[in-house]
């Protein structure tokens, strides 16, 4: 016989405004085995939790139902409170009467009726609950960081400094990411390379950090504390152990017509290349699509000139398999393609460029050695127009509905740097809003206007037309209620940013959920911002949402602290709500094995006693350490052999019956 207590939360007015909590408490009193019910303003507060503890002790409760917010929010809180009072935490049921009830109803009578039904269903389920006990699993004391930009580097350094091993997997030939491409950084204007490259060196020199560049994650299995990951280390065709990084091969390579990715295609690179001078590792890679040797079998110059004998055309991809306790996604971003923004003539006019291209043009190590020159004729521009929000805050076509967050600040920086270097060059910025919520950000933008004389025009550009070697920029000036036409020499588009395309496949691989824009979602938008809802997966940097460098570094550190918290444990409590197979009922059909997303189900030949008959049958077996309790197998099983602890078929049916009563 159960003795059940029911606790109804007001959630301030969140629930109480649309649900008559008193009536709910009264109504559940007649439900089977309910011996106590009450309501309270905030059940999650210390007052609420102590009410639960006291009631358990006073009434000898064997289980409790908390009618409150979503279990995603506070199930763990109430389980802990119950455990303190000596109750098995799995004897706690949550009826979600906020998100699924009070927030969606306007009429109090309707809200109350639904809350009573939800409470009734939870009681019906709890009547069939049994105490569950979690198993333990060990924690592998190593973290995997996917992405070697500033986010990944910072997370790796922080985790490694705490004494844990970290591997960074980076898909390009070098770590450094987008930050390595930048010239100066707002709002302090320190040089990006000066602050980034020492961190890159630290990461590569750290005894606890291992770099896998030019590598990608191929597959993953396992669960929090114990992931097994296959990493494909792509063949550079250069032996990293022998290479001295002298660069002679790069210099002598006769194939020099591939576009430099690092310089945003503004200049060419050789087929064997090092992305930039401070690249780490300082080992070249052969681009097989551009290499004459790989294309025709002839050439081989790099091999001839390499005194270290490091060139290896026969090198093959290598698969490395390693175990990790935690995984950090730090996959970063890229600017969106400007191909669909032909009103700005990006694809047609070489002097219409993106902000990242402008960044390379400003950079002393860039294609113009830091001189601001037009790509078309290498002449310095006399008038430059910056266009903000190109593809951001757009609900049509290939635009992004969100604000890309970094553009207002880098555009102010670009205009300021331009005016600083070339006081005779005019800079115009078309803006919809100038968004500068950050420390010293607005002051920075105002400096661009007040000290550097950048012309800020509230409005948008409608069309760019090339006429007689100039770019005729037609835009609106909403303050003056005018249409303005500016004869410019260069147009810089602040392209919206989007998650790196690799994020999607990694999200699927790691079951890390994503939003409609392919940004990784956090376990809680405010309270758990650096964790994925999937245990053991953490988020660092722009892959979670647009952010600038200071925010990225802060988040990278936060992710590291969560990783350290996990790796510092020797064992993890598992989830006892896992699937199990009733062997006499199993017909060996393999349906469950096929739907299981975690590979937790295998089939084995076992001795089964069915109606007194002993025979050997092929039956399903669940690896409880791998099972995540998703329940896919239970709904797939045609014979009802599969059941999920904590969510048994009987429990679910009891809930349905209670609702339909």
């Amino acid at each position, binding site marked *: 016989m159960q003795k059940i207590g029911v606790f109804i939360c007001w959630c301030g007015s969140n629930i109480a405004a649309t649900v008559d909590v008193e009536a709910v408490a009264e109504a559940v009193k007649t439900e089977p085995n309910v011996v106590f019910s009450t309501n309270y303003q905030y059940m999650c507060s210390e007052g609420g939790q102590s009410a639960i503890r006291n009631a358990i002790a006073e009434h000898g409760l064997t289980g409790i139902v908390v009618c409150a917010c979503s279990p995603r929010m506070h199930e763990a809180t109430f389980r802990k409170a119950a455990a303190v009072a000596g109750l098995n935490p799995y004897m706690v049921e949550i009826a979600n009467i906020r998100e699924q009830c009070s927030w969606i109803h306007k009429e109090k009578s309707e809200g109350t009726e639904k809350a009573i039904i939800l409470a009734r269903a939870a009681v019906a389920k709890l009547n069939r609950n049994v105490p569950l006990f979690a198993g333990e699993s060990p924690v592998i004391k190593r973290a995997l960081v996917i992405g070697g930009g500033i986010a990944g580097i910072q997370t790796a350094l922080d985790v490694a400094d705490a004494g844990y091993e970290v591997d960074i997997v980076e898909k390009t030939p070098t770590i450094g990411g987008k930050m390595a491409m930048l010239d100066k950084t707002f709002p302090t204007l320190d040089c990006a390379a000066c602050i980034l490259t020492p961190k890159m060196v630290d990461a590569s020199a750290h005894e606890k950090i291992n770099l896998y560049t030019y590598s990608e994650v191929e597959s993953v299995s396992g669960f929090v504390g114990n992931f097994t990951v296959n990493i494909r280390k792509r063949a550079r065709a250069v032996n990293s152990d022998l290479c001295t990084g002298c660069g002679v091969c790069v210099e002598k390579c006769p194939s020099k017509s591939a576009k430099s990715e690092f310089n945003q295609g503004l200049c060419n690179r050789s087929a064997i290349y090092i992305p930039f001078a401070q690249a780490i590792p300082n080992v070249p890679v052969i681009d097989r699509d551009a290499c004459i040797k790989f294309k025709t079998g002839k050439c081989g110059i790099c091999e001839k000139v390499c005194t270290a004998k490091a060139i290896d055309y026969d090198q093959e991809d290598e698969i490395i398999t390693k175990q990790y306790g935690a995984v950090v996604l730090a996959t970063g971003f890229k600017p969106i393609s400007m191909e669909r923004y032909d*009103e700005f003539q990006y694809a047609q006019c070489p002097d219409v460029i993106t902000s990242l291209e402008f960044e390379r043009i400003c950079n002393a190590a860039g294609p113009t050695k830091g001189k601001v020159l037009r790509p078309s004729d290498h002449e310095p521009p006399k008038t430059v127009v910056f266009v903000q*929000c190109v593809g951001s*805050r*757009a*609900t*049509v076509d290939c*635009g992004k509905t969100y604000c890309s967050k970094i553009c207002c600040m880098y555009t102010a920086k670009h205009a300021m740097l331009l005016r600083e270097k070339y006081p005779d060059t005019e800079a115009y910025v078309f803006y*919809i809003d100038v968004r500068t919520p950050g420390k010293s950000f607005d002051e920075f933008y105002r400096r661009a206007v007040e000290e550097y004389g950048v012309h800020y025009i*509230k*409005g*948008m*550009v*409608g*069309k760019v037309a090339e006429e007689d070697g100039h770019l005729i920029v*037609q*835009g*609106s000036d*909403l303050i003056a*209620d005018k*249409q303005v036409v500016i004869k410019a020499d260069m147009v810089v588009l602040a392209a919206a940013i989007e998650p790196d395309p690799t994020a999607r496949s990694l999200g699927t691989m790691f079951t890390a959920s994503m939003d409609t824009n392919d940004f990784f979602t956090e376990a809680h938008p405010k309270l758990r911002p650096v964790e994925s809802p999937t245990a053991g997966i953490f988020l660092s940097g722009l892959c979670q949402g647009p952010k600038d460098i200071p925010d990225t570094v802060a988040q990278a550190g936060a992710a590291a602290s969560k990783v350290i918290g996990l790796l510092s444990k020797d064992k993890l409590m598992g989830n006892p709500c896992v699937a199990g197979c009733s062997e006499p009922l199993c017909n060996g059909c393999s349906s469950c094995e096929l739907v299981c997303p975690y590979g937790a189900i295998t089939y084995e030949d076992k001795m089964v006693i069915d109606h007194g008959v002993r025979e050997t049958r092929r039956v399903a077996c669940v690896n409880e350490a791998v099972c995540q309790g998703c329940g896919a197998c239970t709904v797939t099983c045609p014979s009802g052999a599969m059941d999920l602890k904590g969510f048994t078929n009987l429990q679910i049916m009891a809930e349905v019956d209670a609702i339909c009563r």
Partner: protein
Amino acid sequence: MHADEKRLTEIIIRTSGVNVRKCMKCGKCSATCPNFAEMDIRPHRFVSMVEEGDIAALLQSKSLWRCLSCFACVERCPRGVEPAHLIEAVRMEVVRPQGGNRLRPEAIPALLDESIPQQLIVSAFRKYSK
């Protein structure tokens, strides 16, 4: 807002099919409009005046007769607002009532020249008269 203007605003929103609240006031319509100089109420203001229910001024606007229906604003609006549809809806409110026609058949002969295409006369009638 005047009761009549409120009624008109509703009609204009209904016949245009435009959700004026989607406008984020970026001004790309006015940046784009090839006939901006001839519009007394510019496209971006036209949208916000419908939003504000300031219809009386729109009914008097020269812009009604100067919008070319070239759809450049519709094409380039990042929020899918369709300013040209609003202008058409207001123009309908002017030409639909009796006596509202701007172009009358009697006026046509004087406008004709040797090469004027029928298309011009028909389209002008459709835009300026009912």
